[in-house]
């Protein structure tokens, strides 16, 4: 021991010529949620390699993942309290938003709010994933590890104050999801989804990086704090590079949130990827995409370039809402329908972002929160109906669901109504708040477009509900000829029954953990639908802030 100490001292002595690096202050408390999530993922790898028994128990894996997610959420509470606290006059206390690690990591209501959402989507997806992995014979801890690590990428995007960090968060998020999308090695659709997602994702990343490079070239920094400061204090003789850079950043984020025209991957990937992963993609990945988008655009570019990017956001929002809704209507595959509907939802959230105001941001955050639970629950149901093989997603597979699994049908109906924005669900207030933000921002075109789209969108959810409740599976398989005699008619009925049973496929199982996940999502959806104040209060307090380190 002594020897070691000596050694280190002598090494230090030798290097005395080298000046000590002025390493930045790190407020470790700011990183606790991220550390729990990311290190939780890494530790799971370690555990499972040291204790193979742990890896074999799917319950342990799911339980661990959910525990990590809950831990992340719990760790957010003291941070939230700190950020929301206001010091009284003369009192010395730690309060308000702050940034650390040389200003690259910002902690504010915004980042904590979205961290909680990311963790929630991890928990919901992990619970659904448990049974799925078992049924499909996919063993090993990797899906859970990737889920947690991917979510940590989202957390990074929500907290990053530096474009490079945002980019690394984006890649952590994306690369893990590419793998998750393709994890079912015996489903070619899963692989196809992975290839499409990956190539297009890399393509979009290249644009995003080019954007960072241009912004860097125009402002001399990648730090949002510096960029904002530079743009506030300098007059650019020529802002072409900067604007092109902002455009490229918008393309990169647009891809991640599946904004039209950067949306083409979404339906294919959602359809091909394993359903529990889609539950995460539609909730977590979208939340992360919006986290990055809002953080970068609202903090760094609103004062300087809001007039430049808001019109683009307006067009994108309208196109996204409309194209998503219209394309969803003509689908025959429920999973694909909801993929398009998730595109449409992105458009609604963009309505809030477009407002670029406090009201708009909290509306978008409220929408994200409501949407996370609605969509995670919806895809949870889809996972169950998909059954083994994850292939039974056609609308016809939902016929008569109300008869076979009444509870499941009712729950799915509530989620679909929530997506349609029917009152007494969280979806109603989500739409209500974003439209209000648009009206308050005097973007009447956007508000009207949003309302029209909401009307069109109601069709598509209605179609699925009709299929579940109002289709008699017997109708699909012909009717009994009325001219038959009694015995013949009876025989025909039995035959018809058999045909229906064959067409319906195997029975739908409802595993406990998946039921817990869907139940939680339902609870939140309905509770927030009755008392939006449960979330809107937090969303109002979760505005992004840019605070330089050390201040």
């Amino acid at each position, binding site marked *: 021991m002594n020897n070691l100490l000596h050694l280190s001292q002598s090494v230090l002595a030798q290097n005395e010529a080298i000046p000590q690096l002025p390493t930045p202050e790190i407020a470790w408390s700011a990183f606790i949620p991220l550390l729990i999530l990311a290190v939780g993922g890494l530790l799971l790898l370690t555990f499972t390699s040291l204790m193979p028994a742990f890896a074999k128990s799917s319950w342990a894996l799911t339980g661990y993942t959910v525990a990590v997610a809950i831990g992340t959420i719990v760790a957010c509470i003291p941070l939230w309290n700190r950020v929301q606290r206001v010091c009284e006059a003369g009192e010395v206390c730690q309060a308000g938003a702050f940034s650390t690690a*040389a200003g690259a990591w910002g902690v504010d209501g915004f980042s904590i709010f979205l961290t909680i959402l990311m963790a929630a989507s991890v928990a919901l997806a992990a619970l659904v994933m448990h049974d799925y992995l078992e049924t499909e014979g996919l063993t090993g801890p990797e899906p859970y590890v990737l889920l947690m690590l991917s979510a*940590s990428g989202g957390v990074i995007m929500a907290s990053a104050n530096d474009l490079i960090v945002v980019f690394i968060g984006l890649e952590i998020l994306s690369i893990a999801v590419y*793998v998750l999308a393709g994890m079912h090695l015996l489903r070619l659709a899963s692989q196809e989804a992975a290839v499409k997602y990956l190539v297009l994702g890399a393509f979009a990343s290249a644009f995003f990086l080019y954007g960072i490079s241009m912004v860097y070239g125009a402002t001399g920094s990648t730090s949002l704090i510096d960029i904002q400061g530079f743009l506030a204090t300098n007059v650019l*003789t*020529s802002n072409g590079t900067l604007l092109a850079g902002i455009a490229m950043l918008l393309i990169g984020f647009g891809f991640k949130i599946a904004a039209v025209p950067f949306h083409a991957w979404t339906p294919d990937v959602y359809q091909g990827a394993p359903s529990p992963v889609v539950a995460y993609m539609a909730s977590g990945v979208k939340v992360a995409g919006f986290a990055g988008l809002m953080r970068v655009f609202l903090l760094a570019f609103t004062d300087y370039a809001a007039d430049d990017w808001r019109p683009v956001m307006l067009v994108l929002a309208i196109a996204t809402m409309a194209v998503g809704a219209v394309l969803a209507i*003509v689908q025959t595959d429920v999973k694909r329908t909801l993929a398009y509907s998730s595109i449409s939802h992105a458009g609604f959230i963009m309505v809030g972002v477009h407002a670029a105001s406090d009201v708009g941001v909290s509306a978008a955050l409220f929408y994200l929160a409501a949407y996370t639970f609605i969509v995670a629950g919806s895809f949870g149901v889809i996972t169950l109906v998909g059954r083994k093989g994850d292939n039974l997603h056609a609308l016809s597979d939902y016929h008569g669901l109300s008869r076979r699994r009444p509870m499941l049908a009712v729950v799915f109906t509530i989620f679909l109504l929530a997506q349609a924005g029917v009152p007494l669900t969280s979806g109603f207030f989500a739409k209500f708040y974003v439209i209000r933000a648009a009206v308050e921002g005097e973007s009447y075109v956007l508000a009207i477009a949003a309302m029209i789209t909401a009307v069109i969108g109601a*069709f598509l959810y209605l179609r699925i509900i009709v*299929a579940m409740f109002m289709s008699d599976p017997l109708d699909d398989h012909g009717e009994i000829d009325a001219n038959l005699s009694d015995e013949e008619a009876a025989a025909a009925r039995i035959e018809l029954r058999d045909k229906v049973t064959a067409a319906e496929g195997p029975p739908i199982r409802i595993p406990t953990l998946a039921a817990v996940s869907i139940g939680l999502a339902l609870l939140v959806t309905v509770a927030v639908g009755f008392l939006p104040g449960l979330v809107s209060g937090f969303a109002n307090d979760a505005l992004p802030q840019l605070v330089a380190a050390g201040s």
Partner: protein
Amino acid sequence: MVDIIVFVVSAAIILTGAIGVIAARNPVHSALMLVMTLFGVAVQFVAQEAHFLAAVQVIVYAGAIVILFLFVIMLLGVDKAEELDVGRLTAQRPMAFLAGAGVLASVLVSLLAGDESITGAREVGRAIIGGEDEADFRQIGRLLFTDYVLAFELTAILLTIAVVGAVMLARRVRGEAVDADTYLPEQARRRRIRETPVLLRTPVVETSDDMAEANSGGGE
């Protein structure tokens, strides 16, 4: 003068390599052409006094990434020449060139539209290249552990994901693909997609007859 010669030569190497990548029939050739481009870029790094990056560029890119490409090509045995015809998307090629021209034009205009000072912030001076007698790798190293320490640490997660993901995907699994029947030849499939449902009416179910017919049409 030397500057110009170096630039022109390296630019020619870069562009030749790049065009080679997209024009070569054989993926192996594409990979080798990629190496050429990477070298050219490294030369330009040197010309702009980014010596350390030039070295990294050669070692990491040419030495590791391209080798990985070649390795996969050989592993899969896909090194035979690819048909460079337009494939199923006849209009795609001319459109692709238009798109490329569009990207180029828009980027160039944005970069060159103003006066010669492209960059807004001159002399941000976080670390001055050549100003002090400090090697650039030192400056990079210092920045990595100060301003960019967070990003630097976070790359650990990224690399872990890459490893875990690669292991997971490269695993060999036995068994027939569960959805092989959906991967039917083109015509059978297109016909199904064209069936656009009437709004709000529950669509006609794809009967099993239909599938069987499609299967017999050209099963794999």
